[in-house]
């Protein structure tokens, strides 16, 4: 039930961002836009909606903590794996122009065939990776 409730909030937030800011709530693009503007020394003013969304996202755990303790979270990957995983996620989502939010939620909600293909590929790769790491390699 918590998963469904969380999903409903994510869907509502994506709809709000689309209907009022006119943008796709894809975290890849929301991160890459301001990051590229910084790297190319372009004015950040054009990235205003993305930056505000990021501020809201970063504030979420702080606001949550005002009302309840944050749920338990465990990150078991070591530093080397985290570097590799981070690079793969960054490069992969940028190449495909979206991740779990942009393709997975917004893309599927707007019935984009490209997003459906991307989601099937990354889900398949995610399932396969966990299978290899946990069962084939037995780590």
């Amino acid at each position: 039930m918590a998963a469904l409730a969380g999903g409903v909030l994510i869907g509502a937030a994506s709809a709000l961002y689309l209907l009022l800011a006119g943008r796709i709530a894809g975290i890849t693009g929301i991160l890459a836009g301001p990051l590229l503007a910084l790297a190319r020394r372009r004015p950040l003013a054009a990235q205003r909606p993305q930056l505000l969304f990021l501020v809201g996202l970063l504030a979420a755990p702080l606001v949550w903590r005002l009302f309840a303790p944050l749920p338990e979270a465990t990150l078991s990957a070591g530093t080397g794996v985290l570097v590799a995983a981070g690079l793969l996620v960054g490069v992969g989502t940028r190449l495909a122009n979206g991740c779990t939010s942009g393709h997975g939620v917004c893309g599927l909600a707007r019935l984009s065939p490209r997003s459906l293909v991307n989601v099937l590929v990354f889900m398949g790769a995610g399932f396969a990776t966990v299978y290899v790491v946990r069962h084939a390699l037995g780590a």
Partner: protein
Amino acid sequence: MDRTLKTLAPLLAGLVFGIGLIAAGMTDPAKVLAFLDLAGAWDPSLALVMGGAIAVALVPFGWAKRHRRTLTGEPVQWPTARGLDGRLLGGGALFGIGWGLAGLCPGPAVVALAAGLEGVWVFVLAMLAGLLAVDLFDARR
């Protein structure tokens, strides 16, 4: 009014999105890996996150698709890419492998960073480097 709305809407969208990720359990990499572990003690509950999100977003996205504008009458920045290509497929595969290695995707990683999850900054820095690397490589070609 319009100016206030333009500030508040993205800020609130980000906040609600982040609260949703925490409530859903997406910010716990162990839970995400349990969802991806079909052959182990599979925890399918996270499928409801995407399912619930899409169910809620379907009608608003359909409306925006037809009207091509926001509720305040401004144009929607709609994705323009068409067709399937190597970047879409290869990018999806690379992303899926990284997701399966750490149990983190971009949104939850950013929220977990602000929540102070130990070690997640390593993933976030590498992810930002990866995002930037694609654009810098593209610019050199």
